[in-house]
């Protein structure tokens, strides 16, 4: 049984590797039969990537983008968790804020970005606000769901033993929300970094989005792809070395 399971696991891994190479191969074939400028070979893209890395440009812009992702992520999570808990616990808050939330959920990201730039100027703060506002409603919806499904029985235990308010919140209440917080964080990072690029493209003078805009002006597809690869790799690392460990920590008691 176990042996079989192991075998099928290996087999599935093999399929994954093969699929990756198939994609690579497919790309190379298309690149061969089409214009090298609009559809460059992966080899050339990687060469460009190395050049960009070696002159330091790429790391600077990558750093700027990550910084914006990080700040917006923190703000969106904190505000979203706070409001989500309020809305999940108090019906009046929920009734009052629900329509706002639906409205914000449905405003296109682009509109929020442009309005933010118009109202707050082409500034860093405007950029951060625009990104956060795009994410907050999603966080709220997820956390509210969690807050509604809180196990009151455990809170009664805190009440009986006259546990302090802070302890009650951080030990009895918040851990019940961890799965929801992690779900929100997961979806959050994925959405935020995509929006940050648009924000940079529209009104910042550095960051990956800005660079892609610049390359677009020169139809420099190789560089666009090089930056994309670099960025995707960074985000995958973030998932593996930040979100995954966080999730494992929060789930350590689920055997």
């Amino acid at each position, binding site marked *: 049984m176990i042996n079989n399971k192991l075998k099928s696991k290996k087999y599935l891994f093999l399929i994954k590797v093969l699929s990756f190479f198939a994609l690579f191969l497919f790309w190379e074939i298309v690149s061969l039969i089409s214009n090298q400028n609009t559809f460059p070979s992966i080899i050339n893209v990687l060469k460009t990537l190395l050049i960009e890395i070696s002159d330091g440009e790429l790391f600077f812009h990558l750093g700027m983008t990550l910084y914006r992702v990080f700040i917006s992520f923190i703000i969106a999570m904190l505000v979203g968790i706070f409001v989500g808990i309020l809305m999940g616990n108090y019906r009046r808050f929920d009734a009052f804020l629900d329509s706002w939330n639906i409205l914000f959920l449905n405003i296109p990201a682009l509109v929020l970005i442009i309005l933010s730039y118009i109202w707050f100027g082409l500034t860093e703060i405007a950029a951060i606000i625009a990104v956060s506002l795009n994410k907050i409603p999603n966080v709220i919806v997820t956390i509210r769901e969690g807050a509604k499904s809180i196990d009151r029985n455990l809170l009664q235990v805190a009440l009986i033993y006259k*546990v302090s308010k802070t302890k009650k919140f951080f030990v009895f209440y918040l851990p019940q929300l961890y799965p929801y917080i992690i779900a929100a964080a997961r979806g959050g990072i994925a959405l935020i970094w995509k929006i940050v690029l648009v924000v940079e493209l529209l009104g910042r003078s550095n960051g990956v989005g800005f660079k892609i805009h610049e390359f677009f002006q020169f139809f420099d597809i190789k560089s666009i792809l090089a930056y994309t690869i670099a960025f995707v790799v960074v985000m995958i690392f973030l998932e593996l070395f930040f979100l995954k460990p966080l999730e494992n920590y929060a789930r350590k008691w689920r055997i």
Partner: protein
Amino acid sequence: MATSIKINVNSKIFPTKDKEDQTYAAIKALNLNISKGEFCSVIGPSGCGKTTLLNLIAGLDKDLKGEILFDGGKKLDDIRIAYMFQNSRLLPWLNVLENVEVVLSRDQKLKHRAKEILSVMGLEKFLKFYPNQLSGGMQRRVALARSYSSQPELFLLDEPFISLDEKMANKLREMLINLWTNEPTTIVFVTHDLREAIYLSDRIIFLSKAPSKVILDKKVNIRRPRKLEDKKIETLREEILKTTKDIFDGEEKNA
């Protein structure tokens, strides 16, 4: 260390869920005095409001007509209370030791109170285990340890040994009696098992069907330490059942 309780509940009324103008009276004119350090069991037909009574005493439910006083006038906030529920209500994200320590004061923690009680209960090898890794009986033991380590002046138990096999239940009953003998406290113990009640208590209160009131107040004069297989327990059980046949249906005897 222990407290006395004076219960005068004129009425406890629940609104009926579907029909707003209708109400359901769970308790009516229930008067009961429990003295310091007494082990008092409460027996009644299912749905007669035993849990409701405990919740009123514990302050989990504050909506009542009447009053419940401790130590001749103290408020609930001034006494240390413990409550063991039908299910263990442990925090799944804390290990055994943390689950007990979470309800302790700093002073109690410094005295290694949690470890002490946990070893008395034979759990010293499981301090780092999470509740999910323990059997139902062991979870109940941790819950008992948590309750007792908080050094309660009043200890409420709501059918705490239900849905355990008889052997495990007997072991826990013995543990409870040992703890209570070493560190006396006032106990209100809800059960529907007459044999259990006789084995454990100084006094048994029989409640009527809802709206519940006291229909029989029986002292248990069997010398401690008692043995489960003691004939006197069986004799008293039969005597109670004979004199008040319908006691389990909550019918008042016709004297």
